[in-house]
C-alpha cells in the first residue's frame, strides 16, 4: 500500500499557446533554457517523495513520452511504482479519449487501485512552480478533509480571471467561483488537489454516470462535493506559481527567471529542478560576444550581443546580431547583423542575415518558426535592414 499516488494530467493541447504547441503537448514545451514545462511538476514529485506517479497523456505525446522515458532524471525509474505513462486505451468494454480531467482519472482507477493509496494527488503538468507536496498532505490529514486544494492569493483586479475559492477563516471552502465578475476572495485555485482516495473514487464513479457532466474537476467534481457538504479545505501556497497558458504568460515566466530577486529560481537547493541533460560541450562566448542578464545553455555560440534573453542548447548568434528579451529554442541559428526583440524562436529555425524583427512592448511576443518566418520578414513587424 502506498500512502499517496500522484496523478499528473499532461494531455492538454494548450490551444492558446498557438505555434508553441503545434507539435507537442503543452507540458512538453521548452522552458527556461534547458527544461520542459513538465519538469517542474515531475521534480516536485521527486522532491516530495512521491515515487508512484501516473502521467496521463493524450495530445501529441511523442516528445513528452520520449522526454519522460523511464523517469531516470527524476529518480522515477523504479521497480515498485515509479512513473507510468497512462495513455487513453481500448478494452473489451470499448474505449474513448479522455473527455475531461476527471474522466482521465476515472479511466485509470485500476492503476490507482493497484497501488491502493490512502490519498491521491492530482496535478497538471503545465504550471510553473516549486512546491513540497508533503506540506499539503500534512494539512489535508490534519483537517481530515475529503479534498484539500492548493490556493494562491492573486491581485484583486485579476481575480476574475481565475477559479476563486471562498473560504471561512479556518480555510474551509464553502463556495467555488469560476471566473467571478465580482470576486469575494482573491484565493485562486492552482489546480493542485489532494484527495482522500475513497471519497474521490466514489465521486468519479457517480460522475461518469451523469450524461450532462463535462467530467472536469473544477466544473463537476468539486461542485458536487460542495453540494454534499463534504470537507473541502484550502491550502495557502507561498511562492511563485504561474499558469503558462498564453504566449504572453509563457514569455513572462521565462523572463521571470532572469530576475535576480524573483521567487522563481533554478538554483533552489531544497527543491532541485531535474531534467534530461544533453551532451553538448560548454558554451562558447567569442571575443565579440556580449551577454548580460541572460540564461544560456551548453552548446551555444555567441558572437553577437544577447541581453535579457533565454538561449536553449546549441543556439548560434553570429557577429553583429542583437538579441533582446527573446527566447531561442534548441538549435536556433541567427545570422549576422540581425536584430530580434521580444520574440520566441522555435527549434532549429534559421534566421537569415540582416533580419529585423521587433515586437512592441504592448504587443504579445511573436512566435517564429520556419513556416511563418518568410511572411514575417515581409510584414511591418520585421524586415530586412
Amino acid at each position, binding site marked *: 500500500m502506498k500512502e499517496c499516488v500522484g496523478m499528473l494530467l499532461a494531455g492538454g493541447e494548450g490551444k492558446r499557446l498557438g505555434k508553441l504547441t503545434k507539435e507537442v503537448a503543452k507540458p512538453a514545451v521548452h522552458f*527556461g*533554457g*534547458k527544461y520542459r514545462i513538465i519538469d517542474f511538476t515531475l521534480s516536485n514529485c521527486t522532491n516530495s517523495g512521491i515515487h508512484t506517479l501516473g502521467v496521463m497523456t493524450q495530445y501529441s505525446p511523442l516528445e513528452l513520452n520520449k522526454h519522460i522515458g523511464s523517469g531516470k*532524471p527524476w529518480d522515477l525509474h523504479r521497480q515498485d511504482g515509479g512513473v507510468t505513462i497512462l495513455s487513453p486505451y481500448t478494452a473489451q468494454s470499448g474505449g474513448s479519449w479522455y473527455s475531461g480531467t476527471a474522466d482521465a482519472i476515472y479511466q485509470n482507477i485500476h492503476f490507482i487501485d493497484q497501488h491502493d493509496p490512502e490519498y491521491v494527488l492530482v496535478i497538471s503538468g503545465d504550471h510553473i512552480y516549486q512546491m513540497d507536496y508533503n506540506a499539503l498532505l500534512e494539512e489535508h490529514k490534519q483537517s481530515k478533509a475529503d479534498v484539500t486544494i492548493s490556493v494562491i492569493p492573486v491581485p484583486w483586479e485579476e481575480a476574475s480571471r481565475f477559479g476563486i475559492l471562498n473560504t471561512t477563516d479556518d480555510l474551509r471552502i464553502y463556495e467555488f467561483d469560476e471566473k467571478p465578475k465580482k470576486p469575494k476572495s482573491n484565493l485562486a485555485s492552482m489546480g493542485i488537489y489532494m484527495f482522500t482516495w475513497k471519497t474521490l473514487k466514489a465521486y468519479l464513479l457517480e460522475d461518469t454516470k451523469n450524461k450532462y457532466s463535462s467530467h472536469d474537476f473544477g466544473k463537476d467534481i468539486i461542485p458536487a462535493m460542495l453540494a454534499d457538504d463534504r470537507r473541502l479545505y484550502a491550502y495557502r501556497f507561498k511562492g511563485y506559481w504561474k499558469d503558462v497558458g498564453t504566449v504572453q504568460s509563457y514569455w513572462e515566466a521565462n523572463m521571470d527567471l532572469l530576475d*535576480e530577486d524573483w521567487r522563481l529560481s*533554478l*538554483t533552489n537547493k531544497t527543491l*532541485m*529542478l*531535474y*531534467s534530461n*541533460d544533453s*551532451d*553538448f*560541450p*560548454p*558554451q*562558447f*562566448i*567569442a*571575443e565579440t*560576444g*556580449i*551577454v*548580460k*542578464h*541572460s*540564461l*544560456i*545553455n*551548453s552548446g551555444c555560440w555567441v558572437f553577437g550581443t*544577447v541581453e535579457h534573453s*533565454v*538561449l*536553449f542548447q546549441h543556439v548560434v548568434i553570429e557577429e553583429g546580431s542583437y538579441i533582446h528579451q527573446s527566447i531561442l529554442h534548441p538549435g536556433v541559428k541567427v545570422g549576422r547583423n540581425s536584430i530580434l526583440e521580444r520574440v520566441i524562436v522555435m527549434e532549429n529555425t534559421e534566421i537569415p542575415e540582416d533580419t529585423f524583427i521587433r515586437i512592441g512592448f504592448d504587443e504579445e511576443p511573436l512566435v517564429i518558426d520556419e513556416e511563418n518566418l518568410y511572411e514575417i520578414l515581409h510584414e511591418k513587424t520585421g524586415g530586412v535592414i
Partner: protein
Amino acid sequence: MNTMMGLINLEHEHHFFHELTYFRNGASVPFAGRYRLIDFTLSNMVNSNIEEVAVFTRNKYRSLMDHLGTGQNWELDRRNGGLFVLPPDWNDPSDISKGDLQFFHNNRDYFYRGKASYVLISGSQFIANMDYKEAFKYHLERKADVTLISTMIDNEQPEHERCLRIEADDLGWVKNITNNKSNPLLFTGVYIINKDLLMTLVDQCIAHHQDYFFIQGIKENLSGLKVQTYEYKGYSAFINSIESYYRHNMNLLSEKNYKALFYKQPFVRTKVGSYPPATYRSCANVKKSLLANGCVIDGKVEGSILFRGVTIKEGATIKDSIIMQRCTIEPGVYLENVILDKDVHIKANQRFIGSKDKPYVVAKRKEM
C-alpha cells in the same frame, strides 16, 4: 566475429599534474569546462561501436570510479559487455607478475570470456575526437598483428618529450620505435592488437619477469611481430603536465580548435549533472571564454574556462584562467593565469597572478 573491446590502461601513466593529482589520477583530471581526460578515449571507444571497455587502475582512483559510475553516461551499463574497472589483486602469493602485466594476469578469465577478438588499448593522455573504426578497418586490411595509431606533429612541445616516435617503411610496417626527438611521427599510446596474440605475449612477458607490456611485449619484440602504423590526422593534444594541461585548455578558446575537438557528432560524453543553464547577471562581461552550465556570472571573464557551478561575483576579474567546478570568487578579486581546482573559495579583494609557463595552481577545497 571481428569486433574490438576497449582497454584503458592507466598503469604506466605518470601523475605530473602536481596539485591536480594529489587526490586523483591523471585520467580523472577535469578538462575543458565539463570533462575529465578519460572521457575522450572512452567516448571515442563508445562512438566507434565498442561495447565493452575495461579500465586498469591502481591508485588514487576514487574520483575516477565516481566519475565512471556504472558507465551509464557512455551507455556502458549493459547486460552484455559494458564497463569493467579491473583492479589488481595484491594478495596472491603465487603471483609473480608485475606492472600492467599483473592486471592482465589477474583478469585473464575476463579477457578469455569476452566475445571480441581484438583489443584496442589506450591511455588517457592523448586527447582527440577520433573514429577508431577507421583504424580498425585498416588493421584488418593490412592483416597486421598490431596497429599503432600515430600522429604527425608540426612543432615540438615539451609534452612530446615523453612520447615514443615511430619509424615505418612506405607500406606502413613499423621498423623501429624510438625516443628520437627529430622524428615528428608520434605514437599516440593507442593501438589495436589481436586478443589471442595479446594473451600469448602477456604470458611470455610474465615468464621473463617483465613489467611493462607495451615496451617489453611489443617495442622490444618488433622483429617477431607484424606491426603497422595508422596515422591519425585530426586535432589532437598530448596532456601530461600542468603546463601542457593549461596550454591545451587555452587552445580550445580558438573557434577552430573548439570545433575540431567538440563539433564532430556523436559528441564527447561525460558524467551529466543537473545544473541549470549559465546565468549572466547585469555586470557580466564575458569574452573569449568557455562556460559550463550552473555558472552565475556577475564579473569580468576573459580568455578563461569555467566549469560547472562556478560563481563569479560582481567586480571580480578572471583572466586567462581555469576555474573548476563549484568555485566561488568574491567581489574585487583579480585572477590571471590561475588554475583553481574544485570547490575553491577566493575571498574578496585578493590578487593571484601566475605565468603562462607556470600557472598558479590552487588545490581542491582551499579557502584563500
